[in-house]
């Protein structure tokens, strides 16, 4: 059988047999949800869902649902709306199965990437949010350390102004959850590089602004430690296009990095969308550019085939550029469950390789 047929069958098998719900969906703009705070406990998006976000995961995002299935513990325990508005509870389990293949070798691996419990408390103008659970090096050990890698408070200073401080990743770029995208990994926006951050956010009907200052925690390896700031501004045009720009500057241990990004999400309709991000990174005397493009079309409620491409261009005489392009699906069969399968072919130094990533995500 031809290799691509095997890969397609693997994707199909994963879709049919697997199960798992995601949290950060910048493409929700196609349904009128231009900002994150409608569905998430934090206006920055991601992490804990609020009660409305949970409800929407069943009503709008999932292929099937039964009554109260989107509630914590799948609705097994009845919790009043009052309690749900004061307290947040959730968690994430992400498992990645990956096949990489190049002319010399084929590697199959599977590992637990994330096991986290999340808690939150909402007072009148204040929210306290935290996660517990960390897998330090998923490829080497599946041991979960029950420590907190993310915790912060959010103060709703005015109706549209928020200040948050604590341990979290600053806002930069599209705010996609996939940290393995080059546009995230190449600016060190990865969960294992913990930062203590203070961030101001302004969330308007057509404008979103954020300004953050951050410093690596002492748990980060000395060579990766950095202190810096990040800023993002996004505009929403005609409820269809969110266009933004982000900038980041960080310094530490002889490293000085600057990044400038332009990004957008376009809603063609309530079913189709695209994401685009281009980032230029200056690191000491080297310069690289990373790009990402994804287009998705929901064909059945909760089931979205997608095409995506990534590029990494290095401005060095001896360096080679890298390209990846591929196709995949995002499927939210039921509330709490997400499956993402993406097959990409990569070109690097005149050599072709391929990568199939199957991500199973369970949201508690």
């Amino acid at each position, binding site marked *: 059988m031809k290799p691509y047929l095997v890969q397609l069958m693997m994707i199909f098998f994963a879709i049919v047999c697997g199960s798992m719900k995601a949290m950060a969906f910048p493409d929700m703009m196609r349904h009128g949800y231009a*900002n994150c*705070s*409608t569905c998430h406990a934090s206006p920055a998006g991601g992490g804990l869902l609020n*009660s409305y976000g949970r409800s929407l995961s069943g009503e709008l995002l999932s292929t099937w649902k039964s009554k109260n299935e989107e509630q914590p513990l799948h609705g097994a325990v009845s919790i009043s709306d009052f309690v749900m508005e004061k307290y947040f509870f959730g968690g994430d389990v992400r498992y990645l199965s990956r096949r990489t293949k190049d002319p010399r070798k084929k590697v199959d691996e599977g590992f637990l990437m994330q096991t986290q419990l999340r808690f939150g408390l909402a007072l009148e103008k204040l929210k306290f949010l935290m996660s517990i659970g960390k897998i330090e090096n998923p490829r080497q050990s599946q041991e979960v350390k029950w420590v907190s890698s993310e915790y912060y408070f959010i103060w709703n200073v005015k109706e549209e102004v928020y200040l948050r401080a604590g341990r979290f990743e600053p806002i930069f770029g599209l705010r996609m959850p996939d940290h393995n995208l080059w546009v995230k990994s190449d600016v060190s926006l990865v969960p294992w590089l913990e930062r203590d951050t203070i961030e101001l956010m302004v*969330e308007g009907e057509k404008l979103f602004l954020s300004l953050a200052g951050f410093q690596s925690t002492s748990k980060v390896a000395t060579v990766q430690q950095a202190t810096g700031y990040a800023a993002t501004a996004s505009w929403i045009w005609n409820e269809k296009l969110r266009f933004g720009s982000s900038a980041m500057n960080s310094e530490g241990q002889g490293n000085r990095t600057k990044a400038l990004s332009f990004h957008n999400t376009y809603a063609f309709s309530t079913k189709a969308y695209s994401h685009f991000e281009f980032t230029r990174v200056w690191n000491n005397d080297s310069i690289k550019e990373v790009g990402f493009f994804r287009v998705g079309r929901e064909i059945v409620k909760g089931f979205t085939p997608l095409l995506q491409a990534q590029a990494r261009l290095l401005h060095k005489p001896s360096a080679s550029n890298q390209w990846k392009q591929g196709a995949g699906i995002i499927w939210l069969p039921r509330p709490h469950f997400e499956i993402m399968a993406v097959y990409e072919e990569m070109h690097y130094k005149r050599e072709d390789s391929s990568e199939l990533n199957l991500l199973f995500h369970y949201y508690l």
Partner: protein
Amino acid sequence: MKKLVSISIFILGFQYAAVASSLVANAGEVKFTAIGKPGFLKIHGQSKGDFPKGEIQILNGQASGDFEFNLKNLDTGIELRNEHMKEKYLEIGKFPTAKLKIEPIAVSEEELKSDFSKKFQGQLLLHGVTKGVSGNFDYQAKTKNVVAKFNLKVSDFNIAVPQYLGVTVSENVETEVLVKLKDKE
């Protein structure tokens, strides 16, 4: 007798001249937009498989009209939201339709031959309450399409401010009514 005949002819003639034209709706759409907070959520609703029924009469250079729309045919794209909107807020069991009565607007036969925009005022019956509304409308001569836009405040119609799981919808709703007209047979 002569006098009676003259009066009758005058009255008949007047009636003929007075009912210059009547346009009836044969297609259209109702749309609305409301904003929810937090996050400036845009809620868009529109009619599904139905349109406002009614007609516009032009009498002595004055156009007026009556339209009625069945609220059960509104759709916001989310089933549960539709259910809340219709059952809890619009209470369509008790108040199934919305009616808009357009107050006379000066429109000449000549004006109807080209596109124009005008202001209008009307009385909207919604949720059992009649309240004055005002807005603008555009008329397209070629298609005989009328697009009327007006804002309404749900509290004016004794409709509670919609709230659901921490999301509160603004009480101001932008409304747009498209009516495709044709000559009444």
